[in-house]
């Protein structure tokens, strides 16, 4: 079964707790490394970010998500399981928009693979973000002019 890589809205405490609860069902892994990405209320000039609106190329996200997991499992032999979950839609400042959980036999590969997973997600996952300011104007991130 293909895991879901995207969830509409923020990644709630309930979702994160559910991931942790599910770890208890497996006894072959001794270390879990977890990364959470949070929406910052950045200040841009006189404006403050109140939310980020994410959009994704859903079909390509599934394919690239599978590719990222496949390449990490090959690179880190001790890693047993990797889950990636990214928000789409509006996520208010302070809320969580990215969850990465890497489970391995031992801590070193769990942590190294988690760091690498986040880098690959930034580099390869077809997701875009629009910062929405408190005055409801917006700015695309990564939209540099040619």
């Amino acid at each position, binding site marked *: 079964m293909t895991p879901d890589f995207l969830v509409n809205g923020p990644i709630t405490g309930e979702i994160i707790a559910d991931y942790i609860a599910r770890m208890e069902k497996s006894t072959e892994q001794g270390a879990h490394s977890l990364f959470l*990405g949070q929406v910052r209320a950045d200040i841009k000039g006189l404006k403050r970010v109140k939310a980020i609106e*994410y*959009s*994704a*190329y859903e*079909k*390509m996200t599934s*394919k*690239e998500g599978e590719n990222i997991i496949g390449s990490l499992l090959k690179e880190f032999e001790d890693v047993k399981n990797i889950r990636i979950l*990214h928000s789409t839609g509006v996520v208010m400042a302070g809320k969580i*928009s*990215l969850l990465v959980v890497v489970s391995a036999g031992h801590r070193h590969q769990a942590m190294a693979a988690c760091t690498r997973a*986040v880098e690959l*997600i*930034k*580099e*390869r*996952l*077809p*997701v*875009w*973000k*629009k910062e929405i300011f408190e005055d409801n104007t917006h700015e*695309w*991130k*990564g*939209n*540099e*002019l*040619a």
Partner: protein
Amino acid sequence: MPAEEASKQKIQNHRMEIKVLFFGILAEVTQTMFRHYRDVTSYEDLMHRITDDYPELQHYNYRVAVNFEITDEPPVLKNKDEVAFMPPFAGG
């Protein structure tokens, strides 16, 4: 390939229907999330028609994916292919 089949495929290739998608800021500047181009003859033909329809695209950085695969070389399109215009990724 038998001549008859080759010629049939050539005719089909000359009548391709391609789904084109725009993401991120490109959906905003083109005011289009997706549209279909009909009677497309080649990738070059498609790109020509898109840049005619949306000249503002030239001001932006983007990469093109064909069927969810980023392509740097001009690909050979098939009927019903999906072509996506993607600005730099900004996930996380």
